[in-house]
């Protein structure tokens, strides 16, 4: 007996998870819930990567998106004391036209995407060595640039979020 039927089923479940999570992020009113569901989306996405045989990418996906980015966003939520608001204030004013535009672009693209036939090759061997090789040989310079970008982002975030000293002193006085 073969286990061929497993893959499509798993894929179906994962895609439902991905899309449902994404939709929930857009539609839910409670940001914390949205954040958690975003994490859920990321996890399902990691599953898809595994299904594609890119387990390293999947591991990074979980490590970075679930472990770091979601937590960061939760921080942001907690710091910007978000309060649930009436539906009236939920959508931007431009929503109708935006909806039209998005639909106009999305539907053709989604339909077009089915024109890719043929299945990706069976996962096997793992993608770590190949990935590492190309990152550290052909893409060494972009890799360095990316590190520089990260540094810049770090500095920028610190500069943006640190209070200036006067404010600091004021807070200390309040304490």
């Amino acid at each position, binding site marked *: 007996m073969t286990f061929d039927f497993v893959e499509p089923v798993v894929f179906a479940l994962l895609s439902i998870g991905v899309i449902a999570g994404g939709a929930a992020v857009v539609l839910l009113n409670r940001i914390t819930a949205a954040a958690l569901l975003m994490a859920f989306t990321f996890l399902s996405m990691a599953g898809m990567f595994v299904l594609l045989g890119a387990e390293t990418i999947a591991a990074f996906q979980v490590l970075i998106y679930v472990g770091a980015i979601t937590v960061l966003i939760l921080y942001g939520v907690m710091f910007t004391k978000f309060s649930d608001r009436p539906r009236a204030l939920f959508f*931007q004013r*431009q929503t109708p036209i*935006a909806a039209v*535009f998005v639909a106009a672009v999305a539907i053709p693209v989604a339909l077009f995407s089915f024109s890719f036939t043929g299945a990706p090759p069976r996962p096997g061997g793992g993608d770590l060595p190949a990935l590492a090789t190309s990152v550290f040989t052909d893409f060494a310079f972009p890799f360095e640039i990316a590190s520089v970008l990260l540094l810049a982002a770090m500095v920028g975030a610190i500069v943006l979020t640190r209070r200036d000293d006067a404010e600091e002193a004021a807070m200390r006085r309040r304490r």
Partner: protein
Amino acid sequence: MISLVWLIPAFPLAAFLLGGLFGRRWLGHMTGLIATVAVGLSALLSIGVFLEVLGGKTQSVVPLYRWIAVGEFSVSVSALIDPLSSVMLLVVTVVSFLIFVYSNGYMAHDAGFYRFFTWLSLFVFAMLILVMADNYLLMFVGWEGVGLCSYLLIGFWFERPEPYYAAKKAFVMNRIGDWGYTIGIITIFLVFGSMNFVDVFKRLEESAPAQATLTLICIALFFGATGKSAQLPLYSWLPDAMEGPTPVSALIHAATMVTSGVYLVARSMPLFEAAGPSLQIVGVVGAITAIFAATIALVQFDIKRVMAYSTVSQLGYMFLALGVGAPVAAIFHLATHAFFKALLFLGSGSVIHGLGGEQDMRKMGGLRRKMPVTFWTMLAAGGALAALPPLAGFWSKDEIVAAAFVNGHLVLYAIGIITAVLTSFYVTRALWMTFYGEPRDQHLFDHAHESPTVMTLPLILLGVGTVVLGIAIGFPPEQGFIHRFLGPVVEAAGGAEHAPELATILLLAVASVGAGIVGIGIGVLMYVRHRPDPAAVARAAGPLYRLLVNKYYIDELYDHRIVEAARTIAGASWAFDIHIIDGLANRLGWALAMSGQGLRRLQTGVVGNYALTIMAGLLLMLVAYGGYAAGIFGR
């Protein structure tokens, strides 16, 4: 040893970096020691190199790395080591070393001690690059480098206005000269397709270009040389440069940098030889400068200025020698002059040091008892300057005038002789006013003291050099060691300098010695016997005297003519800039601002709208893509 030649400039460079980076904070007075040791090491190395060249390794090129390579324009950083450059290396490093030692004492109490040695090391580095370069471009790097250092060091005491202005003047004048140099090397590249000395000279022999071109090149190069070695018309920065510290005047403005022009002309001798009239121009300019500066030196009272003008005049001698086709004599005189003029400067420096900064000779006098070492060494140097046998100056200067005579430039010969008289007169005057007679300023005299050993030792060494150098390498005349050594490199291809017979030589020697004696005699008469009394002579000379004291009003001339003209041009271009260019730009800006007023309605400030715009763009792209894919818009 020659393979290690790159170490010679490396040591001063290292000293410069150390001093520049750590001098202020940590090293302090260590800087002087470090720099001195570094230069000493390079002196040792260059002695080694010299010996090796002596051993017969004439002309070896040591490539360091490829500097520029654009099309067929390729310049490499490499050292050309041949007798000429090795002699220069020797002179530069040895004199520099002695002067470094001296400076340790002279600058000891100066606040900018580390600064001084940092820049001095940088200067030595640049000078060595200039000397060792194997192509005109690299030489130009050193050329500019020494210019920069001379600017920095003249303005060393920038707190006072005079050094600052002097530095600026020197820099500007050097720039004018560099302009000539630049034109020269560019033309060289255009004509010969290379900047390498060796290649250029080879191609010159293979296929000589048009006279006019060569003349242009030579004139341009020589113009650069006049800028760097203070010849007419660009001489007037050198006397002002005396505002810098005395060791600087000794090293840069007597021994090494100012001679780089001579070196340049000697280095490109083949070009000049081939270029017909240019050599005569060199000689004439040199001669005129020589006598011109000597006359000014007659009446100066600032001891350093006297030395400065004498330097200008001696450089004139060297160019005279080059002009009359005796480059060996020129280099010979360069070497000896480096020694005795550096000695004169250091001596006057030690006098100034002893008198606590007093430079006016009218306030000196009777110092020979107070500072014997300085006195004796300076006496030797003065003798050398006055070309008394057997001191160094005699041999070299005698050769120059002799060459002028033998090669049939009688006018130049006459000028040389007259200048010799003037020279020996003003040197006698200077020495007398400084060391003999009664102390004119009792207070200064009482506080005068001999300089410390660290300063007197270099004096003594230089004095030894002054005494023995000439006879060592210049005897017998015309067949001395230096001729055998340098001759093959710089002599004219045709061997213009046919050695005259001994009688002529002796005759000429007697003549020039006689000239020296006469000058000294007049000096002694006027300043010892007071008949005629100098003041009386000055009064009698009247306008002529004033002309000399005011240095022929050259500076004023430059100010009024050239500077004014430059001002006018600058003003005109300023007006053009303001009204035409800026006006255009402003109109344009105004138009843009107006259109911006209209367009800024699009900037709603709401991020969502911008994102929506991106989306619209995506939609357009999609439509276009689909259209092309479906062939609606055609292929």
